């Protein structure tokens, strides 16, 4: 005879993803270094967005007709995301690799021996945090940046493509953070994983410029700077949604590979 028991966290028969997410949330929020790094990114991001917007706007009276035709005030303010190109993926890497560096991964896997759950929980926590922080920077840099445009044309949230650019840019950067998390699970050593990120995302696309067929346009930073964060998209660049799908693919590959290696390698 079975009796239907209302299930709650307390009466669950084994640990589940929400338990692990709670645990990872406590871990992430209890490190002063990650809190300060994110706060620093918000401040520098907004300041940078404002400064770069003001500098560009001051050039407006001298710009050629061609440059004026391609004037993209949204894109100018989103220069504020540039510090995030490094900060967000590095934090993603560290979320995994620092556990291997200090040995706490043993405590983590002792509590959660089904290791993929750990990676999924970290992805949920860090993905959510990175998404919120990135959107805060994106919107704050945009709103503040538009105030310093002076005589140059402004952008407003209501204009076509602007809201898309803001939301997708922040989301894209969060994906880059999750890509870093995957790299951290694959490589496990913080320094090497960060070097791998720099090689793949910063160096490789530059090398690809030498190759025919424009393969460099698949570089994450090219997509982010010229497609996601842009309202006027130049020819030869992936469309925002195609670019977002490409980054989602990179991220999925990194996370799946990281998850497989997490299971097959000794902790």
């Amino acid at each position, binding site marked *: 005879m079975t009796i239907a028991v209302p299930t709650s966290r307390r009466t669950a028969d084994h*640990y589940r993803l929400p338990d692990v997410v709670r645990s990872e949330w406590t*871990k992430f929020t*209890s490190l002063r270094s990650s809190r300060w790094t994110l706060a620093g990114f918000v401040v520098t991001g907004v300041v940078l967005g404002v400064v770069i917007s003001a500098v560009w706007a001051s050039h407006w009276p001298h710009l050629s007709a061609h440059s004026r035709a391609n004037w993209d005030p949204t894109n100018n303010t989103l220069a504020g995301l540039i510090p995030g190109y490094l900060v967000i993926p590095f934090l993603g890497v560290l979320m995994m690799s620092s*556990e291997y560096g*200090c040995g*706490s991964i043993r405590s983590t896997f*002792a509590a959660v021996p089904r290791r993929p759950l750990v990676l999924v929980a970290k992805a949920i926590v860090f993905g959510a945090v990175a998404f919120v922080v990135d959107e805060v920077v994106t919107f704050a840099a945009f709103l503040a940046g538009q105030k310093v445009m002076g005589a140059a044309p402004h952008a407003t949230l209501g204009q076509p493509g602007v809201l898309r650019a803001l939301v997708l840019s922040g989301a894209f950067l969060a994906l880059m953070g999750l890509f870093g998390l995957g790299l951290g699970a694959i490589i496990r050593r913080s320094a090497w994983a960060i070097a791998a990120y720099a090689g793949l995302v910063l160096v490789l696309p530059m090398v690809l410029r030498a190759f025919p067929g424009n393969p460099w346009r698949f570089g994450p930073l090219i997509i982010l700077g010229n497609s996601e964060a842009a309202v006027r998209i130049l020819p030869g660049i992936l469309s925002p949604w195609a670019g977002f799908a490409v980054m989602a693919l990179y991220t999925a590959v990194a996370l799946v590979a990281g998850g497989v290696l997490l299971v097959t390698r000794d902790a």
Partner: protein
Amino acid sequence: MSEGQIVVSGLAKNYKKVKAVNGLSFVVEPGRVTGFLGPNGSGKTTTMRMIMELDAPDAGQARVGGRPYHELAWPLREVGALLDTKAFHPGRSAERHLLALAQANAIDRSRVAAVLDIVGLTSVADKRAGAFSLGMGQRLGIAAALLGDPGVLLFDEPINGLDPDGIRWVRNLVRGLAAEGRTVLLSSHLIGEMALTADHLVVIGRGRLVAELSMAELQARTPQFVRVRTPEPERLAGVLREAGIALTPQPDGSLSVTGADTDTVADTAAANGIALHELTPEHASLEDVFMELIHDSIEYHASTPRGSASAAAAATHTRRTS
């Protein structure tokens, strides 16, 4: 009854070409402290890591309460382990470290304060764990092991870095946990420590099982002999041998008598009018017996001065007893 048992069967693990663990089998029963004894590098830590499934074995299996570790419903509520001195992030406070572990297994928050109190870290609960001394780190590791109030406990060299007070505290804690009916596996390379803590011993060397016996059995194995000094050692040796009593003359002129107790030696000497200057019953040390047990399994015993000295001591006792 498999409840709370740790069963290790045919476990093997190779690192590169080194066989760290090589066909190891043993059972750890609840309600007593099982000492996991072996020299450094004999495979104790690797075995414990395989029980926890942190490392995958190349052969064999380990079961806790009849199940592989990853099938435990709430691992920390069933198995508590101290495997590394540093299994925490240095930037996180002790309290947050334990809270994160508690949340992962839906362990009540109140347990965090409770175990911090048990290990005596309440006053530094909010301090960064990176600033902890080795001994405090060890206490935090023990707190994590106790967090889920588990029935099975694994302690790998728990007294490392502890001061004498801490060592005594761990000893009492471990004995108390076993007395409550829990399964306790405690590794050490120090037989003296085991003699004070363990009820049962699993002795390994070079990744292989050397002996599985109770502490009492091991103590019974320590050779007993009577140390005799006399001005006439040759004559006493002669009359004792005539009486069928085994002995070994020692370089300092004394005799080690293994075939009789003090009364017999004294009576024999008196009957023959031989004066005795000393008559002392002695035990070989547990270290000697331990070294004898693992004699063949120590990797480089001939080249390490400490090891070879003890091995030589064990060898003399072996000759005396045989």
